[in-house]
C-alpha cells in the first residue's frame, strides 16, 4: 500500500515539475542593422558625439502599425552605427543630426522631403545615408604642442549645404580636449578647452578662413596623451555640433 502511495507521489512530483518548464515560443531579437551617415560632399562618414547630442538613427517599424512609436539607435562618434538586437521586420529608417534633415515638413505638417529608406531588416542589413552637413569642420595641419605647454589647433569651417534655409549663423566654435578618446560637447575637460562665441552673423566672414584655437588655463599636465577635436554649430534647430575627427597629441 505504502509502495503504491510512494509511486504515485513520485510520479506526481515528476509530472508536476516537468510541466513547470515554459517554452517561450518567440525567438530573441538577433537581426543586425549597421551602416554609416556619410557626408555627401566628401564621401567620409560624418563625425558626431556620443549620446543624446549626436547623430541618431530613427526606426519606424511599419510591419504592424502605420503609426509606430519611434525607436532610436545612437551613432558612434565616427558616424557609423551597429545594432545587433533587432526584430526582423519592415522599417522606415532615417537619421537625425547635424545635417540637413532627411525628412522635412512644411508649415501645415505635410512632408515635403522624405529621404528615409524603407528596408526589410533580416540578417545583417546595411543602410547608408548620404547627408549634407550644416557645417564642414576640417583640420588644417596637425595640432601642435606650443613651447608654453598649451596646444594649438588650426582648422577651417565651410558650409556643407548650398540651401540657404540651412545656412544659419554660426553661434560658437569649440576646441574640445579630453584625456580619453570619447571627446565632444558632452565630454571634455573644461579647464583647458577654449570656446569662441559669436553673436549674430559675425562669424560668417570667417567661413573658409583658417582659424586657430589654443588651449586655455595654462600648460597641460605632462606625460600623457590628449585627444582633441574641433566642434562648431549653427543656430539651426537643436543646434547639433559638427566635428572634425579626433586627433591625439602626446605631451611629454
Amino acid at each position, binding site marked *: 500500500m505504502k509502495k503504491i502511495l510512494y509511486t504515485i507521489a513520485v510520479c506526481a512530483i515528476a509530472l508536476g515539475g516537468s510541466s513547470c518548464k515554459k517554452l517561450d515560443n518567440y525567438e530573441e531579437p538577433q537581426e543586425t542593422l549597421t551602416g554609416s551617415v556619410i557626408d555627401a560632399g566628401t564621401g567620409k562618414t560624418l563625425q558626431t558625439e556620443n549620446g*543624446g547630442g549626436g547623430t541618431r538613427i530613427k526606426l519606424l517599424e511599419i510591419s504592424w502599425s502605420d503609426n509606430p512609436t519611434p525607436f532610436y539607435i545612437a551613432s558612434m562618434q565616427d558616424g557609423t552605427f551597429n545594432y545587433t538586437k533587432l526584430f526582423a521586420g519592415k522599417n522606415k529608417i532615417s537619421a537625425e543630426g547635424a545635417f540637413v534633415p532627411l525628412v522635412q515638413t512644411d508649415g501645415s*505638417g505635410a512632408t515635403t522631403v522624405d529621404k528615409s529608406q524603407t528596408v526589410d531588416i533580416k540578417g545583417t542589413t546595411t543602410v547608408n545615408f548620404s547627408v549634407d552637413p550644416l557645417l564642414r569642420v576640417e583640420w588644417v595641419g596637425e595640432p601642435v604642442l606650443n613651447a608654453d605647454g598649451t596646444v594649438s589647433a588650426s582648422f577651417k569651417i565651410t558650409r556643407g549645404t548650398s540651401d540657404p534655409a540651412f545656412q544659419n549663423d554660426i553661434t560658437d566654435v569649440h576646441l574640445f580636449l579630453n584625456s580619453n578618446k570619447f571627446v565632444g560637447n558632452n565630454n571634455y575637460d*573644461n579647464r583647458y578647452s577654449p*570656446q569662441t*562665441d559669436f553673436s549674430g552673423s559675425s562669424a560668417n566672414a570667417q567661413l573658409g578662413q583658417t582659424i586657430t584655437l589654443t588651449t586655455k*588655463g595654462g600648460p597641460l599636465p605632462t606625460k600623457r596623451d590628449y585627444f582633441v577635436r574641433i566642434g562648431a554649430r549653427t543656430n*539651426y*534647430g537643436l543646434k547639433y555640433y559638427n566635428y572634425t575627427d579626433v586627433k591625439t597629441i602626446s605631451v611629454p
Partner: protein
Amino acid sequence: MKKNIYIIICFLVCWTTACKKLDVPPINIIQDKDVFTSTGGIQAYMARIYSELPIEDFRYSPQRGLNFFWIISPFPAVTGEALSRDQNGAMQENVGESPWGDCYKLIRDANYFIENMPKYASTYTPAQVNSWLGEARFIRALTYFALVKRYGGVPIVDKVLEYPTANIDDLNIARASEEAVYDFVAADLDFAYANLSESNQAGRANRYAAAAFKSRAMLYAGSIAKYNTTTLSDGAGNRVCGIPSSKAVTYFKAAYDAALLVAPKYSLYKKVWAAGDKEAQFQNYVNMFYDESSNENIFVKQYHYPESVHGYDAYNVPRQLMGGNGYSSAVNPTLNYVELFDGLPKNADGTLRTTTSGKYDLYTNTMDLFANAEPRLRATVILPGDQFKGQSIEIRRGIYTGSSAGGISPILAPGSTSNYPTANIVQSSNANQTPYKLPDGTTMNPAGLSGVFTGDGTCAISGFSIRKYLVPDKPTSEVLENRSDQTWIEMRYAEVLLNRAEAAYELNALGQNDKDYLQDAFLDINQIRERAGATLLAGPGDLSNVNVVRKERRKELGFENKIWWDMRRWRTADTEQNSTIYRVLMPFYSANDKKYFFDARTDERNVRYTFDVRWYYEEIPNGEIQKSQKLIQNPGY
C-alpha cells in the same frame, strides 16, 4: 402565554425592520449632492483643487518636482541667479517627477466641476454660480499653461472622459498645436475674467487674477512666436512645437491689454516707502513679502503651521543663524546677479570694480563697498556684513597675510579658474575655526561666521546669502524643516507691470504704432525702479534694446522661480549657459592693512552650466507616450 406574546412581538419587530430597503447610498462616501448643495461643500472642493495647482512655490525644485518639502537643489541655482552646493550645473526638470499626470487629474477635477455644478444651480444666485464656474475655468487655464510652457502643444481635454467607455479610441487624444493650447488658455481666462467676482477669499482668484495670468500666458506665447526656432508638426499638420511668427503681434497685444485690466485694482506696495530715503525703501521692499494686506498681491498661496508648511527658512538662512536641522545657505546669489543692480562701483564692461590701477581697493567694513547700493538689492540679497535678525552677517573668505606695501596685487591672474594659493592666505575648511593671531596681537577667525569655508558647503559659497522671503523675525529655534508658513506670492502687480512693459516694448519693436508703446514701457519700468530705489530711466530713448526690460524683470522677480521660464521663452538660455561659470565675490581681510578687500572671480568649484537646446521643450514622460499611440515625443529625446 406572556412568553408567547413576547416572541410574537420580537418576531414582528424583526419582520418590519426587514422591510427597509438596503439599496441606500453609503453614508460614508460623500456624494455630489453633499458637495454641490452647500457653499461649504464647494469651498472644500475648491480648497483641494487650489492646493494642487502646479505653481512653482516654496515646495518646488526642478530636481524633485512640485509639492515636495525638500528643496536643497533650489530653482535659482539652475538659472544662474544663485549657486548651491547641491547643484552642479544646468538641468531641465527631472522627467521622473514630471507634473504631466497630476495636471490631467486636476484638469479632470475642474472639468467635473464645470459639468456638474450647473445641475445644482437653483440653490444659489446666478452670480455665485458664474463666479464658481469662472474659478474652475481659471484653474483649468493655469494647469494648461503649466503644461504648455513645459511641453508645447498638449492634448486638450475639455470634458470629463468616461472610462470604461464604448469606444476606447475616444480616449486617445492627439496633441493640439502649441498655438491652440495658448488660445484655449486665453479663452478660459477670458471667461474667468468675465464671470469671476470682484474679490474673493485670500488664496482664491478674483477676476483681476484671471487678467494678470492672461498677461503672463500671452507674453509667453508671443515670445515663442517671435524667438522660437524649433518646429515639430504631427501627421495631421498640427504644429505641436512652435507658433507661427505672424502671431507674435496678436499675442503681445493680448498680453498688453490683459495687463491694462489689472491696473485699476492693484498697485505697487509702498506702505512705508519714502522718496529719497534708502532705508525706508529697503524696509518697504522687505515688508512687501510678509504683509498679508499688501495691495500688490494678486494671487497667493497661503501656508499655515502645522497643517500646511514648508522649509524655506531652514534651507536658506545664513550659516551663522542655522537652525536645528543643520541646513543653511542653499541659495547663494551669484555676483552676476548682484552686478545687475545700480549703486555699485563698476568697470567699463559693467562688472563690479574691486581694484584701482591693478591694486585691490581697501575698505574698513565689508559693507562700505555697497554703501550706495540700490535698496532693492539689499532687500533681495544679504550682502557681506549687512544686518539680518539683529546680527551682522559675517562673510569672509580668509585672512590675507602678505605684505601690503604699495598695495595688494590681485591674488590670481584675471580670468583664472584655479583655486586660491595657500601662501599668504589663512582660510578655514569648516565652522570649527582656529583663530588667527593678527600682527597687533588680537585674534580673528580666518573665515566669517557665515563662511566662506573651503570644505563645507553650508555657507555663503558665492560671498552672498539670500534675503528675499526669509522671515526677518523668526527665532532660530523655529528655523526648522516643515516649520515655515509664510505666504507664497505667485502673482504680484510688479510682474503685471513688467509683462506690460515687455509686451509694449515688443509691440513697438514689431512696428505697432496704434499707441505710443515705448512711452508706456518707459513709464512702467520707471514705476518699478522708483519703488526699488534704483536710478530712473531718463526717457523712452533709454529703452535701447530689449535687455533693459529683461534685466528689470530679473532684478524684480529674482528668486521667485520665474526666471528660468523667462530664459526659456526668450530662447536665450542656451547662449547664456554655454559652458558658463558664474562669478562670485570673495571678501578678504588684510592683516597688515586691517582692512578688507574683495576678489571677484569665477566659482571656485569650477561648476559649468550648459543648457541643452532640446530643453526648450521638455521630454514627455515615456510612460505617457506608451499609453497613447497618438502622443508624439518632443524633438531630440
